[in-house]
């Protein structure tokens, strides 16, 4: 053997909110753990990113348990009320199908949180907890050796990690390198994501309209006069709306949301993402675990991706932290099997649900329009429905990762 190569317990590839929260959770739960994180973009450079996510209660509890929520509360806009309509585009009157005000405990339904401050808060906390940042740098290739995964970086550096965590996004290079296949569903639809400014205040109210083209959500942002849109359309229409003149976009927008917000003006970039689902066939391989979009990518239904990603990070961090505390090899097959079993169930449920939705959407029968309201995004944001689903499907108590219920690992 040649000169000794540096070893770490866990190397996380990808410094988005999922990778950062996994790194932070492990380092903060296990003093002395050697955790490194590589990303081509340092977390300090993300602060201007205003894309907003709906953080559900579970996500907020996790951020609290990680000690970053108090610093983020000023950036977060509480969603205090949500109205849901099921209607056709030209219906003159949209019957309000469901109205949800605050939950019984008085906590908001969700919080709208911009990506920049979220990443900054997680990055700063991870650095304080002792995570070693290898930025800007990215994983070039990895190679399985009997006692660890040898990781080569674009900078030329090499380290050996007991466990490599792929948090490198929907087109995960590490997932492809490990030969993990994916199943994909696509609907020929795209989700348009944009931010709008409006004359009248939103008063913390979220709107979700179930239009024939798919769900259309208006989510309140900080300050009262800005909202985030998630707008599904057939892909060719979506592309034209995004590429076209702002006034056309705004006119189409008003056709869908009405006039109650007053004049609306689109600010910043309009983007369209193909709507679909990509699921990794496995979440683990030799000394490798997939989390976040690398494991399951959904675009761009606000909230779902983030909340699922947080759950992955929480479950993996718990399994790895308990192994490290016991002196076990965090990349050993039996440790990774625990993560696979834990998250695999959720993913299967989601796959079944999404496949079912695919069929629902290709059908225009009236009663189905009611059923499909249970789908995209809604389930995680409306606690009573969520509870019904959760109670029916999850069963055993204690199945949730500790961080997700707001407890430290």
């Amino acid at each position, binding site marked *: *053997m040649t000169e*000794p190569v540096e*070893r770490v*317990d866990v190397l996380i590839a990808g410094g988005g909110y999922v990778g950062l929260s996994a790194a932070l959770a492990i380092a903060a*739960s*296990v*003093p*002395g*753990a*050697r955790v490194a994180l590589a990303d081509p973009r340092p977390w300090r450079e993300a602060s201007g990113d205003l894309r907003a996510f709906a953080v559900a209660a579970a996500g907020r509890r996790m951020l609290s348990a990680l000690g970053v929520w108090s610093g983020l509360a000023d950036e977060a806009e509480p969603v205090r009320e949500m109205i849901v309509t099921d209607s056709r585009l030209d219906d003159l009157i949209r019957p309000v199908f469901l109205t949800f005000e605050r939950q019984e405990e008085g906590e908001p339904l969700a919080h709208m949180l911009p990506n920049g401050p979220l990443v900054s808060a997680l990055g700063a906390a991870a650095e304080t907890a002792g995570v070693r940042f290898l930025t800007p740098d990215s994983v070039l290739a990895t190679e399985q*050796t*009997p*006692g*660890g995964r040898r990781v080569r970086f674009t900078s030329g550096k090499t380290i*050996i990690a*007991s466990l490599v965590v792929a948090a490198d996004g929907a087109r995960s290079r590490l997932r492809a390198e490990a030969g993990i296949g994916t199943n994909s569903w696509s609907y020929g639809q795209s989700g348009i994501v944009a931010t709008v400014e409006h004359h009248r205040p939103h008063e913390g109210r979220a709107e979700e309209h179930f239009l024939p083209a798919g769900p259309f959500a208006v989510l309140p942002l900080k300050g009262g006069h800005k909202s985030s849109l998630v707008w599904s359309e057939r892909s060719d229409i979506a592309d034209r709306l995004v590429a076209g003149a702002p006034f056309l976009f705004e006119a189409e927008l008003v056709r869908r949301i009405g006039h109650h917000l007053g004049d609306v003006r689109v600010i910043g970039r309009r983007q369209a993402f193909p709507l679909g689902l990509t699921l990794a066939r496995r979440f683990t391989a030799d000394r490798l675990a997939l989390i976040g979009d690398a494991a399951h990518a959904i675009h761009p239904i606000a909230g779902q991706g983030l909340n699922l990603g947080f759950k992955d990070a929480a479950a993996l961090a718990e399994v790895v932290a*308990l192994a*490290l*505390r*016991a*002196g*076990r*090899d965090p990349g*050993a*097959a*039996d440790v990774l*099997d625990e993560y696979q079993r834990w998250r695999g169930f959720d993913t299967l449920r989601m796959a079944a649900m999404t496949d079912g939705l695919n069929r629902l959407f290709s059908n225009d029968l009236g009663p189905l329009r009611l059923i499909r309201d249970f789908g995209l995004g809604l389930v995680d944001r409306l606690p009573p429905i969520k509870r019904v689903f959760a109670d029916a499907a999850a069963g055993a108590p204690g199945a949730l990762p500790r961080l997700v219920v707001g407890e430290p690992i």
Partner: protein
Amino acid sequence: MTEMKRDSVDQAEVDRFSAMAREWWDPNGKFKPLHRFSPVRLGYIKREVSRHFGRNERAADAFSGLTFLDIGCGGGLVSEPMARLGATVTGIDPSPVNIEVARLHAAETGVVVDYRATTAEDVLAAGERFDVVLALEVVEHVSDVPSFLATVADLVKPGGLVIAATLNRTLKALGLAVVGAEYVLRWLPRGTHDWKKFVKPEELEAPLQEAGLTLLDRRGVVFDPLRFAWKESDDTDVNYMVLAARPKA
């Protein structure tokens, strides 16, 4: 420390040991029952040693500065975790094959353990003493239990700990460990255990006390079929662990 002297060993031998090391360390392989035991066993050691020596139970390096002797270390399934937690570990086993397997695996994972093919009696005779002495799943395999336990006790420094674990000589243990594990589930090769050599808790504790140790805890380990995992319990009928300390001088 990663430099290994292999010049005098022929490659076929190394390959054979390497294959055996993979077998020892495969969680779904021949030693699956031992691996299944690891989480509860290691969790107990981590908690009790941390409490006794005032260490942070949550830390990855909680055992730094402590010396451990792992008697009957086999392929190193316990020695390596102890070393990973920062302990200075000596792993001993009478089988030179086991020791070679353990050495090879430690070199691969970058963990430093002093593995030796020797006996507890020889280590004692050489005058070495340790903060923590582990005798896990070995008592049921020795010929003279009281004399072996006296040796174990003498290997502990004043203020140090002994952790011993073994199978109880009850009909329940006979049913589960021998008939169940060896014959029904085929987890272990038939003949691995001789029930008559299983040791009752009193038979394990008395020699330790006679050697001047104080008993701190006796804890059972039972199989939880729902989680398909072992867990701690007050029921010591099948497998149990005993914790004893040598008073400070």
